């Protein structure tokens, strides 16, 4: 449904007197399949929005090729526009209009007739539980209501592909869960959905496949399960009383530790079989006279994937 090859974009920005070039996206190759929810996971400034804006024909790529919903991004941008929906990170409603007016206008901008546009608006309002507020000005909506209007605007013309830039940022847990249901419903209707997020649990629970982006590049791609499986074994989180460096020093030398990260007040160990190696870890620390605060064993999470791929934790960045 979406295929990109070597998509690139840099921005020139001025900082005081000197000109700086930011390589926002540096060669992205992606394949998004029909009918899936594809997640783009990455920290602030990774280049997620820039990639989406290129695919939605809002900015021209500096290099690379892409086909979106069967249309060539460079040679048939008009065709791409007709086939996609795009929901911007920052929202897109006008304070003085009502949700119904916005939805009708949006449908009409896609060339849909007046009566049909009104029918679709009514249907979309019901689907997104907005009927109650439909004729109130957008400035009176809560953040969650506004976000639902944004998404309804993005799909009013029933596109084949919809790009959702951080659809759940700023929503409370309940509205987020609701939004996930909405997005799954769109998939069930046959839409292909490309979403960006910084939430690991969202990528894990909602997305069929994900790509992890960092510094303008894709560092990993696959289903959440595949990515986690790449990190073989278990993760042991050790927190110690006192500086973590001492613990790191003794544990680093242990043969069963595959990889280790030093954290604030502890270390994270990647081992083959956590339940067998935990007693070993306890003995080693005890022998070195290091006081243990707590020890946890867990299966690798997407954050561990992110950490091994980028050297940083998404939670901390």
């Amino acid at each position, binding site marked *: 449904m979406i295929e990109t090859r070597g998509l690139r974009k840099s921005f020139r920005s001025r900082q005081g007197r000197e000109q700086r070039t930011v390589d926002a996206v540096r060669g992205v190759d992606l394949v998004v399949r029909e009918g899936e929810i594809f997640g783009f996971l990455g920290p602030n400034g990774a280049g997620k929005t820039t990639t989406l804006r290129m695919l939605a024909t809002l900015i021209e790529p500096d290099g690379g090729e892409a086909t979106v919903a069967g249309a060539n991004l460079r040679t048939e941008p008009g065709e791409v526009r007709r086939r996609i929906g795009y929901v911007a990170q920052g929202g897109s409603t*006008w304070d003085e209009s009502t949700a119904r007016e916005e939805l009708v206008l949006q449908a009409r901008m896609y*060339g849909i007739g007046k009566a049909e546009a009104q029918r679709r608006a009514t249907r979309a309002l019901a689907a997104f539980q907005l009927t109650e507020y439909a004729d109130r000005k957008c400035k009176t909506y809560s953040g969650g209501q506004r976000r639902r209007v944004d998404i309804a605007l993005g799909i009013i013309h029933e596109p084949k592909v919809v790009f959702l830039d951080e659809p759940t940022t700023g929503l409370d847990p309940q509205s987020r869960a609701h939004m996930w249901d909405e997005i799954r419903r769109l998939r069930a209707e046959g839409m292909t959905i490309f979403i960006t997020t910084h939430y690991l649990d969202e990528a894990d629970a909602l997305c069929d496949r994900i790509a992890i982006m960092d510094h303008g590049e894709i560092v990993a791609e696959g289903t959440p399960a595949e990515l986690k499986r790449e990190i073989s074994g278990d993760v042991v989180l050790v927190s110690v009383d006192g500086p973590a460096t001492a613990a790191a020093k003794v544990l680093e030398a242990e043969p069963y530790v595959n990889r280790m990260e030093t954290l604030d007040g502890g270390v994270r160990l990647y081992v083959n079989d956590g339940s067998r190696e935990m007693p070993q870890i306890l003995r080693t620390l005890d022998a070195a006279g290091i006081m243990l605060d707590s020890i946890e064993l867990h299966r690798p999470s997407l954050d561990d994937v992110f950490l091994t791929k980028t050297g940083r934790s998404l939670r901390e960045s």
Partner: protein
Amino acid sequence: MKLVRDTWLIFQRQFLLLVRQPVWLFVGVFQPVMYLLLFAPLLKPALSYLGVTTNAEAYRIFVPGLLVLLAIFGGLFQGFGLIAELRAGVIERSRVTPISRLALLLGRSLRDVVSLIAQAVIITLLALAFGLSVYILDLLLTYLMLALIALMTSALSYGIALVVKSEDALAPLMNTIAQPVLLLSGILLPLASAPGWLQAIADWNPFSWAVDGARALFAGDLGNDAVWQGLGIMAVITVLAVTWAAREFARSVR
């Protein structure tokens, strides 16, 4: 056909939003009325060098200048609304749809033209009550001139707003453009008594041609060269301004 449909769509939306805030009409009429009431009485003696002896004659010179002034300023400051729309994401939302880029501009500018003409009609009616007299055909041609000016200045303002993208830059820029335009057009007082060098500069100000044309029309002098010259110059610049601004709407999007 698609262009007409799309333009009508954007026009309707913008017009609805405008009439929902009727305060613009009050502000837009209140100021010119103040000019008519408080400034025009000073004019009769000031214009005596042109042979003006009655209030009606003074209005015939002053009202067309005032209307042109309103058209210029009304248009030039429309860009602020567009910057608010940019910030709200409304423009980006329109850009991902297949709607005509020219319609995004024309729909907005035509809304500005219509609101300007509404303002002009109210002011004309008031001036008529004060003793102005003008032929209907001449008046309609003057409105055509005003429509061209409003279309041009609002398109320019939208184009510049899209380039600078911030109110902080737009405000001083618009003031810088408006001030010499105002001083060098003979809008408030005819330049007939100005020194030769000032008149020579004013000849390069397209709006001074527009004002001359409008004054000739109000004087009932339809055959005067100033009429077609003013209309022609305004039409050419309007086409250029609209072309440029529509390109700005489409920029970075083909």
